[in-house]
């Protein structure tokens, strides 16, 4: 089943995405980047370069490097390179070819169809040129959609009630604003405006100038005359701009930026957001002019706009968002990566056309963990919370007492380690377990949750294949608040609960050790003298007494003491085993093994 890809064919950068498992995924290119520069170049020997590599050599090869060809789409202007005339469609097709190849590498299969976006103001000729570029690249262009529409799809606005949406797209080198009327799946473009020579680079420029000016004040040197210094300033300026989108101030630290007769000079300037806003206020205002124009053309007032969607890397700048917030009196939407949301929207459209159902497998999750009560009142989880359902998981348990012929399966839901603190969903018994020493029977408990959240719990005695089960409905019927409260409670009591659980485990272990020691001594019978048995028996009795109380530390200490006493006769027991390998009662008894006790215990983890 081949996929239709969604492509944002931008002026400066392009991006490609595809639907996968009901979600849009941005495809990284062969170099590992999620966007690809829309740059095409030819080397002296006619070798073709597209993307980052073409951009890297642009300055050395201006006559054979083509940038921003999108500005010429739909026109008859041709680019002449080494005697060959290239139409804008041909150049664009080269970019599309690279995106196609990257998508094929990612998907592991051929790609022959695509949805490509264009600016809302593109004419028929420009749209047709874009479609042609796709065809030349070997792509059947299923649809051309408007960039602001794609952004709206990415934000899921089409699924809401009818509304008027402004899409504010401040990208690499161009600014576009569109006003859309969206309702019933219909996207109507009410107006567009913009400034196609305004972008992030202009903001960088302001910082460069500021840093150079400050440095000159202090050191009397103009860094802009020093090419090396200027290069470092450019990089630092872009980095500072990006940092100031997330922090209130940033330190531009460039040691050894230059030197004069008095020695090396360093640049160490702190730039705060307020200063940056001051330096770029006119640029921000320059974007508001087309915003107001678009509003006027659409005949709307700020209060008529229901939402503002942010597109393009520079829309991350706080001053820009603040200006919009002031104008519309609402918080602009910025949840989706602004560099990628147009491609994401194109992918969503591609998915719809290709029959991929979006938000497809409304997969539910089980909101809280499910499990059973085990020996000592411990809650043993079988299915963790937030497990996507349908889900099925099994675990093997066993009996806690000799000759135990039935086990009670107490099904619980919650996050606390002790069963009593969680919610009981149901209980049932599995009877008819053949009498056997404890920890011998194998009871497989299976939790099976279907897509509707109905839980079936089965308990099967693997020895007899006898099975019992209950069905629990509405295990996923919890409100978000209830779930959060349960999780919060578990966190609140985590320390205490851990202690309690540990206490239970220490108890269980003590029981276990007593059992093993008694069994071993009984099995040995006369082979052990009364003198040998006495110390061990004394410790056993002491521990049994201590277990009547609640002193966990004492229980632990006495268990240790018993084990120590037992080691003394252990040697003899093992020696006996060597001599009588066929004696089943002497087989591998290790009193120090921690089997966690049981009303039934966990013996095995059997993942289905």
């Amino acid at each position, binding site marked *: 089943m081949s996929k239709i890809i969604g492509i944002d064919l931008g002026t400066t950068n392009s991006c490609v995405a595809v639907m996968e498992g009901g979600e849009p995924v941005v495809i990284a290119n062969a170099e590992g980047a999620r966007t690809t520069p829309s740059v095409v170049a030819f080397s002296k020997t006619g070798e073709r370069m597209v993307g980052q590599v073409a951009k890297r050599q642009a*300055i050395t090869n201006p006559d054979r490097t083509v940038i921003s060809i999108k500005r010429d789409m739909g026109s008859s202007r041709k680019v002449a390179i080494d005697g060959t005339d290239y139409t804008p469609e041909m150049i664009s097709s080269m970019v599309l070819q690279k995106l196609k190849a990257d998508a094929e590498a990612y998907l592991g299969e051929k790609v022959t169809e695509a949805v490509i976006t264009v600016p809302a103001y593109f004419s028929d000729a420009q749209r047709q040129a874009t479609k042609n570029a796709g065809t030349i690249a070997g792509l059947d262009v299923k649809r051309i959609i408007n960039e602001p529409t794609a952004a709206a799809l990415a934000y899921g606005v089409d699924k809401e009630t009818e509304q008027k949406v402004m899409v504010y797209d401040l990208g690499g080198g161009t600014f576009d604003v569109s006003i859309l009327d969206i309702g019933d799946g219909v996207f109507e473009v009410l107006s567009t405006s913009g400034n196609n020579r305004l972008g992030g680079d202009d903001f960088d420029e302001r910082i460069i100038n500021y840093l150079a000016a400050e440095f000159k004040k202090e050191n009397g040197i103009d860094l802009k005359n020093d090419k090396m210094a200027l290069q470092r300033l450019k990089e630092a300026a872009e980095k500072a701009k990006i940092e100031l989108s997330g922090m209130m101030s940033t330190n531009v630290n460039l040691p050894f930026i230059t030197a004069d007769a008095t020695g090396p000079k360093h640049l160490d300037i702190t730039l705060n957001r307020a200063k940056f806003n001051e330096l770029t206020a006119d640029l921000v205002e320059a974007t508001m002019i087309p915003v107001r124009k678009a509003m006027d053309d659409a005949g709307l007032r700020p209060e008529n706009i229901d939402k503002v969607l942010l597109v393009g890397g520079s829309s991350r700048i706080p001053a820009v968002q603040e200006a919009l917030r002031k104008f519309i009196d609402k918080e602009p939407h910025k949840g989706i990566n602004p560099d990628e949301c147009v491609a994401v929207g194109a992918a969503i459209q591609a998915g719809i056309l290709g029959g991929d159902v979006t938000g497809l497998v409304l997969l539910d999750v089980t909101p809280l963990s499910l499990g059973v009560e085990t020996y000592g009142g411990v809650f043993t989880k079988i299915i963790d919370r937030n497990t996507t359902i349908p889900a099925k998981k099994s675990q093997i348990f066993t009996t806690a007492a000799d000759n135990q012929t039935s086990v009670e399966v107490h099904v619980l839901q919650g996050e606390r380690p002790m069963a009593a603190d969680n919610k009981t969903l149901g209980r049932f018994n599995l009877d008819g377990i053949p009498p056997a020493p404890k920890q011998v029977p194998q009871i497989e408990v299976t939790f099976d949750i279907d897509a509707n959240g109905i839980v079936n719990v089965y308990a099967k005695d693997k020895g007899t294949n006898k099975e019992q089960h209950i069905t629990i409905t509405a295990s996923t019927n919890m409100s978000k608040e209830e779930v959060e409260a349960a999780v919060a409670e578990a966190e609140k009591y985590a320390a205490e609960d851990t202690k309690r659980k540990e206490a239970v485990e220490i108890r269980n272990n003590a029981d276990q050790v007593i059992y093993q020691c008694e069994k071993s001594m009984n099995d040995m019978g006369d082979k052990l003298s009364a003198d040998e048995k006495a110390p061990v028996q004394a410790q056993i009795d002491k521990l049994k007494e201590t277990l009547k109380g609640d002193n966990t530390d004492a229980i632990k200490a006495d268990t240790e003491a018993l084990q120590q006493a037992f080691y003394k006769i252990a040697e003899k027991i093992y020696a006996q085993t060597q001599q009588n390998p066929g004696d089943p009662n002497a087989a591998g008894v290790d009193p120090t093994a921690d089997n966690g006790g049981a009303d039934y215990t966990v013996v095995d983890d059997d993942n289905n």
Partner: protein
Amino acid sequence: MNNKCSNEEKCNCECEDKVNCECGCEEQAEQKTEAVGSDDKFLRLAADFENFKKRTKVEKEALYGLSVCETVGKLLPIFDDLERALAAADEDSAVKKGVEQVLIKADSVLKSMNIEAFGAPGEEFDANYHEAVMQTASDEYKGGQIASVFQKGYKMTTNDKVIRYAKVSVVAE
């Protein structure tokens, strides 16, 4: 609702008058379509999952190498500055010697990670490794060669992966 069977031949009810019977064959047909639709959804999802598994496996394997490259990339400006410090230090000073030692250590750490620097004046410009930040005239070097290095490049020697492209000025043709 009109329950008339739309396809007399396929209708499997027992009515004599298949056109006017109300056996709800259409309903059955609807259910069948739904089932086929679900089947299709399932197959698509299954296929997506298979592909996802395959790809995730490859990505996982590559992840360590990528993290290393990214981390080292962030530390490279520090090495750059140390080199500048070395160039600016007074001859024969103890500080200069110290910085030299620091750089030797840095080099050795990078070498142990199979990372090496590249980019020197006189080399042919190659966009696969270098980024041209300006063009210049030169008496010393020919057109198309690197005139000066603004920032050294670094790459993995094991697979030639570039961690940082060298920023250079290139001699104009």
